[in-house]
């Protein structure tokens, strides 16, 4: 799977627009729900999605397959841009964005009619985050999906910074193990 993706990026780097269209069809449905989960407004999510794929087209020549799969390349970029967007909005103190806690609570869960079917073969990873101890899952969600820094997480949870860091490290270690075991 990753090889097809890497080939597509190589073709994009050579200016192949059809390869870009295929690349988009393949990865947009994966990164769009992630972006939407972070920014929460569909119009904003569409905007971020466009930015992310534009950058992929622009930066395709710099992609290096030894540094990660195209999927990780896109997911990392999508997450970063989505967080940029909510940090900017938060700084401006806009009121039309739901408060953070609500946002996490309202994070979309599987709802498509065939989600259960898909979950069957994705089950292992799907529940990877849920399988972490609550305190570890919480810090990873606050960092990765809500864009809080370690200092902000420590303040919010009223925990020492060192505790927060340890929880992140342990949680991420376990996540890597689960994903490795299932692939």
């Amino acid at each position, binding site marked *: 799977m990753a090889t097809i993706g890497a080939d597509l990026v190589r073709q994009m780097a050579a200016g192949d627009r059809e390869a870009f*269209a295929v690349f988009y069809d393949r990865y947009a449905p994966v990164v769009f729900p992630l972006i939407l989960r972070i920014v929460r407004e569909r119009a904003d999510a569409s905007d971020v999605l466009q930015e992310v794929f534009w950058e992929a087209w622009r930066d395709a020549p710099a992609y290096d397959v030894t540094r990660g799969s195209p999927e990780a390349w896109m997911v990392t970029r999508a997450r970063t841009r989505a967080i940029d967007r909510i940090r900017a909005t938060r*700084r401006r103190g*806009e009121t039309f964005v739901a408060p953070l806690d609500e946002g996490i609570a309202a994070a979309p869960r599987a709802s498509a009619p065939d989600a259960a079917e898909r979950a069957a073969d994705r089950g292992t990873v*799907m529940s990877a985050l849920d399988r972490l101890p609550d305190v570890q899952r919480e810090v990873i969600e606050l960092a990765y999906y809500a864009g809080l820094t*370690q200092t902000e*997480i420590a303040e919010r949870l009223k925990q020492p910074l060192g505790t927060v860091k340890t929880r992140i490290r342990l949680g991420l270690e376990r996540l890597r193990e689960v*994903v490795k075991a299932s692939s």
Partner: protein
Amino acid sequence: MNHEPYDTLAATYAVGALDGQERVDFERHLAGGCDVCETTLRDSAEALAALARARPPMIPPPAVKEELMRRIATTTPAQRGAPRPRRLVWAAGTVAAAIAAAAFTGTYVATKYEAKLGVMARESAELRARVEREEAALREQVAVYRNAADLLRDPQAQVVTLRGLGPSPEATGRVIWHPVNGGYVFVANLPAAPPGKAYELWTIGDAAPQPAGLFQVDASGRAAHRIAPVEGGKPVKVFAVTLETEAGVPQPQGPMVLASSK
């Protein structure tokens, strides 16, 4: 030396939560070349990508792909550094053109900033924070213009003209309004609000005027302000702007400086 502290820093960095001096130190450590940390970061990125893939896929709005295909149609690999302007096939009059022009400028400036970021990141935490703030401000500005431009493409969106009244006859304004999604107001030639004061926007339907947010104008008398949708999607007949105290008021009290005609 003991590598363990770096394992913790790498994990925190991988979820984007490392900040302050530690982030600067860790990036220096990475720049010096560390296979252990690079592996941690790579495996973490793959694990987080697997989490994203495990969620049910969603088809994004088709307009996103259409727009992208239009944007890339005119670039070749050699030209890629400078994004070309979007084509204004949907341009709806001068307001759209003005907004779009501002968006291009914003995108161009933001792109230039990104190129610089790589170099600056190593210099100092303070400098980094400043660049991030500026970049975020630019992104935010671009976002407002893009959202407004997206809104204009919706056939349900209306453009309403506001005229300057009494104290500021020169002022002009346009509201792009969507009955479900809300909209944006863009004003020009409005004098800066006196200290302790702010402009407040009102939406007026059949009942009493509803407050729709406070804003300030920039040095050139311009402002762009997001308007949240009216509760229950009730129709808005008039948009008006008054000068109020900085904290805002629930009902208009100050002089009206801009209003749409009924």
